[in-house]
Every structure is written in C-alpha cells, then in structure tokens.
C-alpha cells in the first residue's frame, strides 16, 4: 500500500487531538461572550456576517480540490471540492456585501435634531 506523501505517516491517536479540543472550547467561550455583547439592533446583520464567516469552510474545500489529480487523488474528489468552493464563495460574497449594505442604513439621529 502506498503511503500518501501529504498525510502524516502515522495517523495520530486521540491524544493528538486534545489541543484542538482546547482550542474549540476556548473559542466557544470567546464566541459566547462576544456575541452576548452584540447590539440587539444588529441581530440581522450579525447573522449575515456569521454566514460569511462560516464560509471559512472554503479552506477545507480548497484542501480537497487542490492536490494534483492522479492515482492518489481521483478527479471526482476534486470536483466535490470545487463545488464546495463555489458554494462557500456564494456565502463569502453575498454575506459580506449584504452585511455592509444593511449596516450602512443604520444611522444615528443627527445632533441638531435632538434640540
């Protein structure tokens, strides 16, 4: 059996994943804290922004679509990756654009109106 060049020679055991689990838990705590402070006014733009952020799955899609096609990496695997890239790109483009469009509409009352 051929050992793939790119993947680690020996697949890691559970111990190797402990640091990643730390990252996940700590990031969740940061996330909960940061989101709790988001203005309620902005919950709709928040959702379209997180839409765009969750399109970070494009990173995984690129890693699947990227390798040289050949015996080790069949074409159809790359095609799945490319479809995933396109789907994620939809979210990146539309997510950031619509968030920006909505946020532009939020205006404070001008000081002179307050009287």
């Amino acid at each position, binding site marked *: 059996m051929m050992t793939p060049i790119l993947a680690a020679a020996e697949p890691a055991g559970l111990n190797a994943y402990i640091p990643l689990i730390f990252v996940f838990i700590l990031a969740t705590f940061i996330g909960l804290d940061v989101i709790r402070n988001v203005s309620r006014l902005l919950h709709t733009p928040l959702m379209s922004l997180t839409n765009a952020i969750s399109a970070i799955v494009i990173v995984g899609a690129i890693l699947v679509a990227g390798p*040289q096609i050949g015996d080790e990496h069949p074409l159809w695997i790359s095609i799945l990756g490319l479809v995933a*890239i396109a789907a994620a790109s939809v*979210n990146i483009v*539309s997510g950031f654009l619509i968030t920006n469009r909505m946020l532009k509409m939020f205006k404070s009352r001008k000081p002179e109106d307050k009287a």
Partner: protein
Amino acid sequence: MTPEWRDALVQLAYLAASVLFIFSLKWMNSPASARRGVWAGVWAMVLGVGGTLLNPAVAVSSLPWIALAVMVGGIIGVPLSKVPLTAVPQRTALSHAFGGLAAGLVGTAKYYLWIHEGGHNLTTFRMFAISAEVILGFLTFTGSLMAAGKLQEILPGRPITYRGQLIVNFLTLGGAIACAVGLIINPQWTFLFPVLIILSLAFGVMLIIPIGGADMPTVIALLNSYAGLSAVAMGFVLDNTLLIIAGALDGSSGLILSIVMCKAMNRSFSNVLFGAFGSVQEETGGAAGQTVKSATPAEAAEIMEQADTVVIVPGYGMAVAQAQHRVRELYDQLTKRGINVKFAIHPVAGRMPGHMNVLLAEADIPYDDLIEMDEINPEMPQVDVVLVLGANDVVNPAAKNNPKSPIHGMPIIEADRAKTVLAVKRSMKPGFAGIDNELYTMDKTLMVFGDAKAVVGDMAKTFAGDSGIH
C-alpha cells in the same frame, strides 16, 4: 522558501485570521463600529484563503479551477446580496444551505479519499468527526432549503404534520447515527456512507416541515449554529485550528440567538422543534359578543396629533405590506409637531432576529428611536398612543393574564397599559398562532382596518394636508 518557513507562514496567517474574526464579531456591539467589523471579517477571509493557497498540498495546476469555482460562487453571490430587506430571512436560510452543502461535500470527499488511500488515516476520532460533519452539513443543507422555501412562500408556511411524525423523525435521525456508529467501528463498511448521507438529507427536510412561519426566527438561528458546528467538525477532520475557531464563533452566535428567540417566546428548544405550534387552533372572527370600535385613518391621525408620546409597535404585517417608508413619513410628520415617537421592538417580531430594526433602518429611522421591549415596557403607562402595526401575538395581553392561552408566559410589549391603543389590521382574523387578542376589544382600543401601507400612508397624508403644504 523552506518548507518549515512556509508552514509557519500558513499558521501565522491562520492566527491573524482567527484574531480578526473575533474582532469582526466584537465590533458588532455597536452600529458605530459595526462596519469596521465587516472589514475585519473580509481581511480574515483573505488571510485564511491566502494561507491555504500557500499550503504545498495545493498544486499550481489546480489554481485556475479554484479561481473559476470562486468566480461561479461570486456570480451567484452578488445578486443574493441585493435582495429586498423583507427577503433577508430567506436569503439567510439559503445561505445556510450553501454552507451546509459545502461542509457535507468536503466531509464526503475526505472520507472517500482516505478510503481510496487504504483507510489507515480513518482513525476512530476522524471517522467520528467526518460523521458529525456530514450529518450536520447535509441536514443543514436540506433543512435550510425547506426554511427558505417556507419563508419565500414556495412551500406552505403552516406546519405540515401527520400521525407518527415524531417517531418517523427520530427513526431517521437514529438511523443516521447508527450508520455513523457503524462507520466508526469499521470505516471500511463503505455501504453505510451513502445511507448516512441520504438519512441526513431526509432528516433535514423532516425536521423543518412541521415548523410554522412564526417560529422561523428560532429555526434560522439554530441552523446558523449547525452550520458553524459542521465547520468545527471539518476542522477536526483536517486538523485545522482556523476552521475550529471560526466555526465555534458561528456556532455560539447561532446558539445565543436561538436562546434569545426562545426566551422571547417563553418556549424551549424542543417545543419549537417538535411542538408544531401554529396548528393549535384556527378560528375566524373575534370572540363572540365582543364589540370592536373602529376608526378611519384620518380619525386615528387626529388622536395621534393630540398626543405627547406615540409608540409604534411594528410586526411582520408591516414587512409584508412593505409599509416601512410610509411609517417614516408618519414619523416625520409627528416629530415635526414635537411629538415624541418611539418604536417598540419585540425580539421575535418579523421572520428573523432583528428583522424590524433593519427594515426601519432602511426607511432612515434613526436607531436611537428603536427601543427594546424590556426598556419600553416600564414607560408604557405614560404613553399616550400606541400604534400597533402588523403585530399581533407580541402585544396580546393573554400572554400575561390568561394561563390557558397557548402563549401564556411569553413576554409581550405591554401596549394594553398605554392610554390609547390604535391597531392597524386587515381584518379581525387572529394572528399566526390562531389566538384571539383581547387587546382589540378593550375600551381604549380603536381598530383601523386596512392594508398597513395604505392606512399609514393615509395617516401621513392627513398630517401633510393640514400642515398647509400644497
């Protein structure tokens, strides 16, 4: 560049991207800094994608194809960012569908790639992560498509229920989990993988069809959370910290929004998901023997003219009628007369979290006058006129007074405590939840029947007329 340096550079790009994603969300804490947050997110994405392209695994020959796929996505994405703001809930749901699809496809590709390599890379932990990614990704895909279809009214908005639905749903999810367990025991049982995909896709559909339109704010938030968690699972599959961090931020955002929505309806997650709330009852007409007083838009305008403070309570009806720009005209006429106008925003008004705020912001209403439910309620007894505009259940006093009501315990905007209530409604038909609203039959309430846009337009015109502008 040595491979070591290249690796370090990739990781540093990911680190910078993670920090920027956190700032991106942090800056959403106020409208003043929020646009900076969008830019932070854009730069984080650029660094994440750029870093990934530096990875030696990505062949130069693949780059044109990757660029092409990004362009295809962009071409679909641009029109999706230009939808009218009333359609933002369905756009968001559609977007979750794309995110779920991408995650599901990557998980599928990774599984077959590792099987192709002989399967030694499919450790127990990775197989667990792939299964989670595929289940969450594909159920988010079909579930979000269903939600988008309901919101766009391609599909019926009312809950679709049948006998034994819960059992069928649980069996489907249970089947998917059983396939996952089988694959974790032995990844070589490849026949289980397509079954896992099909059951996940089916479960997404079945999860959403019994949920009605008014529960969509919670459902969209929940699907947002699933999309984030599928990204986390992908991060574990690919040993990628950036995916884990960005996915965790998303997952927690969706979770918090769903909790806010559930609290605002005094309901639990399981009740939203399995309650088929909207099918409770369907009656026509108000309670028997109750008389309703009605007024014309011009009469209503006169009442508002005498007031010192007017509070407008918008609801989904305002969005449906596209009445927000007429509301702005009314707001201008009232404020010009020195009347203090505020908007009372219930967290679940509309079809997604924060929906009303965006619509009113679109109509140039300053956000300082958009007041949250908890802040406005204590002021209600001092309010001269409350104008209920396309809202119904969120102002129903039965939520406080009637323990038998299906919405009992739900926090409401206490319009019934104001001195006078004007309610704009098409007819006396009950709202989405099919519950009678005693607010409409109270002594101090005047109903103004008609389309929200036309009625508010007439009110604004009455003012414009008597201020002598020709």
